[in-house]
């Protein structure tokens, strides 16, 4: 009897320990990280039409920090992070930090439909045939690159982030300091 009880206690404690470890490992909150690239490289230049009808050329932003986001309206994490990008855009106005979001493979109408639900005031560019995304090392959406004032890609984030978080903005501001 005593042996059986001892066995039961041991099993219960061991099981609890495993459950605790599992819960800790799950950690569903995505970390607010912006990984520096081990090998920074020059951002491939491009010219794209925006959803607003204007033409945008990446190299026109030389001297500024550019947050370049590749996304699509059907991609849940892309949609999730867009409001935080808009808040970040408003937060950094006048700081020489710009946000550009490149929609991959969708029409102007699709993007317009999206902005009806989530108003965005920074440029939304249309890479309708996917020619621009092919120039960048993007494997999944969303992927965001940070380009320094010299046009060098220094950081990358795969998946969504809360872009208006000071933890995310600090490395961008740091790039502006010579």
């Amino acid at each position: 009897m005593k042996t059986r009880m001892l066995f039961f206690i041991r099993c219960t404690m061991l099981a609890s320990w495993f459950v605790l470890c599992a819960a800790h490992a799950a950690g569903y909150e995505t970390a607010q990280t912006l990984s520096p690239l081990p090998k920074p490289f020059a951002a491939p230049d491009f010219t794209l039409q925006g959803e607003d009808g204007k033409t945008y050329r990446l190299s026109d932003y030389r001297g500024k920090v550019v947050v370049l986001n590749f996304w699509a309206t059907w991609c849940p994490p892309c949609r999730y992070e867009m409001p935080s990008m808009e808040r970040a855009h408003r937060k950094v106005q006048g700081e020489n930090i710009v946000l550009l979001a490149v929609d991959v493979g969708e029409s102007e109408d699709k993007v317009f439909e999206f902005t009806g639900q989530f108003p965005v005031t920074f440029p939304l560019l249309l890479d309708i045939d996917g020619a621009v995304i092919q120039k960048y090392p993007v494997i999944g959406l969303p992927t965001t690159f940070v380009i320094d004032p010299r046009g060098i890609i220094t950081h990358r984030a795969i998946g969504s982030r809360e872009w208006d978080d000071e933890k995310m903005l600090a490395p961008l501001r740091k790039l502006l300091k010579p």
Partner: protein
Amino acid sequence: MMKKYPGNIRCYDIFAAIRQVTLAAVMLSVAMPVAAVISTGTDAETGLPYWEVVEHGVSIRLVQRLPDQTRGFFQARGFSIADAELIAQSCVFQTVFKNVAPPSDPGVIEYNLDEWIVHVAGAQRRMKTREDWQKEWSARNAPKAAQLAFEWGLIPTRQTYRPGDYNWGMSLFSLVPGTSFDLDVVWRQGGERHAARMKRVVCAPDVHVSPDTP
């Protein structure tokens, strides 16, 4: 040989058990990484079943997608009814692969879907990836816009995640709706190979709701 304690000292047994289990736990945590925890349940967002592997710093979750969801999604992206049907009947899951290690952890996680193995009815095979499908869409003359949406809609074949990175994407297992299978998932963490088996994963059934359905 069983150790004998005086019959009236029950507490001694309990404390001894605590000591032994704690010692075993410490030894286990030092000697080997935490074993993968595989769970299943209902995804809070979609209300559909999921299967998940969680290990230190890694979370891989497969959530069922109903064939009707997939049909609608790909028809809206320019695929013909026949091509959208082909995808919808291919056992599609929404896959979420995350590096959930704390930012202080320099651990890089890599995977390659070519290493993942599907076990079904005693047979095994690898997954059909973006590259395999690309050939198929070219042969079937699918519109370019549709091909692009398909390519970016699928989970990448290979990826490298730093802490905080993750992807969502569809995985297609080329099985009939309702089929049950096991899946070996493989990844590398800091260069070290890890693997886990998700058992009895079930493709969503193809439910056709008619106006007469109660």
